[in-house]
């Protein structure tokens, strides 16, 4: 059967290598062939989609656990392993990455300036993302994590928009400051664990002493949390997103922010269950503040991308809350939310990107009545907004359902607060939609054409994913559970 053959074939490394190969190929293409560059990167992105789908489909849910394992010694003296594997938690993440990359490439199809460098850097970024998601060795997780961060600087600073240099510098420094907490955390765990293996699961089996777990967990939580937009450390996200070009915002908000949450789950919570128990209260508190806070601040924004930035803060808060509950449903919901928020935000940014490319403004007061001239383009944003509001039969609804149920169970007050904030989020999403797309015809935008099919395709794909998993949540939920259930029982 398929998975048997696949199990022997190092498909994960292939996915990872394909991006690096893409990087090299793109760098070898001469400067004056931008079209070719785009085609090549689209091709490799499609390859990534196919491969990750293959992995996802042939992942054996009943068997569960780690599959497609590749593990061999990399550095002998301090015990670094090349250890990639897939379980229910990162399988959806791989698809998410592939899809967002694919749609991102399509979204940037009209890029003119320094095309080659752009796509090269984007592939570097994505290589890092893939690496983090599929690695099970602390060293590699960290390496790929940083690899996925530093290309953000040139990507934003060169191709960005409003206050790009400030935004780029702020984002890069802020996130790498986060990794400045992660590395000591990882090394600390490693050193306490005897200093001869970076293998995540071996360290987990060792079971570290409680006080170590507390210190290590808070470092890992804060470190990864910065990237996950945990409340007081979220201010990079709106600034960075506003500055970044469309595809970068898509990948960054859609995938990169998930790296943070994923890191908390995969590294922090796996290695330091007791530390988690010790800090869970704080996590829940920060997450709840983030949810409410993000929604309220979103109300006041006048820049479309700022609005999305703060909505991400709010939604990532939901992820954090789910993780903090330490229950099966909570973590299911958190992972599910990572996925659907990724798709949703990608949709948001690509829709805004199109509008911005055409109207050259993303200030809500200047826009208005766009639905008259570009109904389809607006429809994409509106659909994303509904998903953000948590309308049922959109994938994010299920995630929020799961998270809220377990949150109310574990932290009643905070859970109820979070649920109530749904009204505010609805208010601000609909407010943006109304101010931007409704209202009388705006002759300023009369001349603007609606989205051509080629550019509509990526958005259509994203919408399709949202609705599909909204209608058939089990297709993803069962996979996630297959990893979460044993995980929670191990806590």
């Amino acid at each position, binding site marked *: 059967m398929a998975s048997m053959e696949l199990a022997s074939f190092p498909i994960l490394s292939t996915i990872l290598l394909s991006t690096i190969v893409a990087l090299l190929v793109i760098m070898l293409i001469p400067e004056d062939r931008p079209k070719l560059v785009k085609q090549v990167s689209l091709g490799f992105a499609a390859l990534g989609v196919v491969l990750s789908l293959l992995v996802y489909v042939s992942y054996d849910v009943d068997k569960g656990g780690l599959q497609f394992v590749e593990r061999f010694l990399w550095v002998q003296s301090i015990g670094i392993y090349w250890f990639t594997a897939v379980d229910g938690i990162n399988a959806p993440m791989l698809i998410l990455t592939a899809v967002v990359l694919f749609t991102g490439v399509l979204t940037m199809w009209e890029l003119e300036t320094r095309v080659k460098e752009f796509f090269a850097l984007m592939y570097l970024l994505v290589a890092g993302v893939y690496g983090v998601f599929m690695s099970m060795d602390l060293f590699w997780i960290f390496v790929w994590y940083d690899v996925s961060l530093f290309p953000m600087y040139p990507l934003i600073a060169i191709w960005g928009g409003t206050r790009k240099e400030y935004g780029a510098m702020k984002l890069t420094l802020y996130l790498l400051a986060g990794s400045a907490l992660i590395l000591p955390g990882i090394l600390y765990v490693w050193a306490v664990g005897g200093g001869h293996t970076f293998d995540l699961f071996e360290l987990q089996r060792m079971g570290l002493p409680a006080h170590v777990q507390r210190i290590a967990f808070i470092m890992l939580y804060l470190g990864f949390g910065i990237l996950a937009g945990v409340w007081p450390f979220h201010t990079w996200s709106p600034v960075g997103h506003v500055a970044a070009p469309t595809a970068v915002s898509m990948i960054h908000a859609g995938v990169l922010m998930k790296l943070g949450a994923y890191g908390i789950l995969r590294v922090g919570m796996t290695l330091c269950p007791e530390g988690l128990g010790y800090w869970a209260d704080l996590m829940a508190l920060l997450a709840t503040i983030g949810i409410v806070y993000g929604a309220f601040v979103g109300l006041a924004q006048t820049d479309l991308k700022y609005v999305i930035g703060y909505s991400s803060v709010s939604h990532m808060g939901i992820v954090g809350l789910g993780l903090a509950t330490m229950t099966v449903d909570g973590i299911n919901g958190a992972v599910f939310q990572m996925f659907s928020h990724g798709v949703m935000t990608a949709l948001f940014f690509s829709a805004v990107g199109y509008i911005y490319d055409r109207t050259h403004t993303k200030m809500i007061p200047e826009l208005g009545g766009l639905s008259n001239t570009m109904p389809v383009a607006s429809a994409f944003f509106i659909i994303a907004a509904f998903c953000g509001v948590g*309308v049922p039969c959109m994938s994010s609804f*299920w995630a929020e359902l799961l998270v809220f149920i377990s949150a109310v169970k574990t932290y009643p007050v905070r859970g109820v607060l979070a649920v109530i904030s749904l009204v505010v989020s609805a208010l601000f999403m609909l407010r943006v939609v109304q101010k931007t797309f409704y209202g009388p015809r705006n002759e300023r935008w009369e001349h603007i054409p609606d989205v051509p099919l080629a550019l509509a395709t990526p958005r259509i794909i994203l919408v399709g994913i949202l609705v599909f998993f909204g209608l058939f949540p089990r297709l993803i939920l069962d996979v996630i559970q297959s990893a979460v259930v044993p995980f929670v029982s191990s806590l």
Partner: protein
Amino acid sequence: MMWLFKDPVLAAACTGTWLPFLAMLVILIFTRRNQRLSAGISIASIVTSLICAIYLFTKLFHAGVPVQYEVAWAMTPDLYVPFGYLLDPHSLLMLLIVATIACLVQIYSVGYMAGDPGFSRYYAFQSLFAWAMLTMVIAPGMLQLYIFWELVGLASYLLIGYYYEKYSASQAGKKAFVVTRLGDIGFFLGLIFLMLGYGDLGILNINQAAAGHQIPGPLVTISALLIFCGVIGKSAQFPLLTWLPDAMEGPTPVSALLHSATMVAAGVYMMSRIFPFFAASPDAMAVALAIGTVTMLLASTMAMATYDLKQVWAYSTVSQLGFMVMGLGAGGYFAGVFHLTTHAGFKALLFLCSGMFIHEFHTNDMRVIGQSGGRNLKVPMISMTIGALALSGLFPFSGFFSKEAIMGVLAQHTNKVWLFAGLLGALMTAYYSFRLIFFVALPRKLATVPAEDHGHGHGADHGDEHHGNAYWAMAWPVMFLASVTCVLGFFQAPLEQFLTGGHAAAAAHGAGQEGAGHGMGHYVLLAGAIGCALAGLAWAWVEFGRKRAPQEGFLKKFPLAEILFARRWYLDDFYRKALDTLVYGGLTSLFTRNDRRVIDGAIDGICKLTVGTGRMTSFMQSGMLQYNLLVMVAGIGLVLLFFFI
């Protein structure tokens, strides 16, 4: 797919519910350009649904036990969300009603919306609405019900805000969504508590469990109250009733659809759906009763003060919903449901009629319509009168029977206040509905008519060119509904048998009430009710109907009251103010400032501080050779100190 055909009932249920969804997808993706085709697809799908509904109704009419199908929609160790169909008398009846109304409205819309630029979009939303509503009606579990309840809210948001160029329309849509969302939060929390407390949300299960007192009382009360918040939101009960009148911004057929049988009725339907559960908590019932009463009275007063055709019916809808909630709250399961049924009929009728007027005269002002010869439109005129009669609960129209039923229930209640409130409500209802009728039917040539023209922007561009078929496309549904309104009342007995037969618990409850209702007291009540209605009618006649009638209500004599009623008891202003001060002015600006100044400021401050420190430190590296040497020697000195101390 074979299993579908093995079980025709299931097949019918699936087709009936999912066909509109498919229709929506097809329209949105493929046939947006082609308006006629879109309309055709949508109508075909809804007609099919109607047929399925009828089929199910007839097939399961005598099947005593409810039929239930389930598949696991989402499943985790702690949470099980089934998707399926629960076909018991109540849901079947509602299914039938919804399908019928939706079908009629869509046919009617062919005429009403003809030539509108967004024709296809309109029908896509209609199908979406139909799908959500139908699936909600026959949901077997509260979670599924909640999910599609939300979708109904979404669809109504889209439909109300259909004329998105109009600020008021989009505003109204937003308001409807957010306000109902407010209620839904309570609903959602109630469900969560119930699930955490009891662990199952299957409608039948919780009904039996609550009736059998297997759920702890406090939990029942709390969750029932919270769930009732959902009813308050959806069915526009006090204090969340203000969104409904605004929702008249949508096209009239939409109002007919939303405010007669479907969206707003969903609240009452949900309440009656888990009636035994509510019944298990007297406190919750009392709250429901009180809120229903307040709502009914407030809405009636508001209805007296407006001159907008649709507004009047909107307020009447609110008050009738309040009336239903009263019925349910007083323990009259059948009474509430029956009034829901009849109300669906005549309210849709009323809206569609006024739609015809509006479509004809491009205005909502009843006085203008009257003077421009509204009465010449025979079909709507007559049907609207019928509707009004039914609304005010006069024999032999359907409204009469259902109102009687509710009155009967109220009469049973120990506290007679509710009964009198009900009677007062009946009085006012008759008054304002006939005030309207007389305005339209027997206009006086008034010197000054404030010609406030709510004419829809779309109305102008398509006038009478396809007047003919458009008119009849609208007339047929109207006439059908009118006839239904005339006869429906006489089916009370079989309906009661059918419904309460299904609900063992409710039967005992309801039948007890009804049974006691007959006899001497019943006739007094009957007389009282009809008396009130007639009194209201007469009053309206005196003020508006008869020759040389001033045609200005008694309210003119109480300007304060009129303003109060016209301003909807300042509820809107209250919300507006609360929103501005609390949300926008308060938390939002506070958080935003905090975000800019405190949090972000701290970050930037740290960066500036670092750079500044660098600049300061760099003075250590002065150009003067010997100072540098001094630094070095001093360093060594410090190191020595470090060792010696």
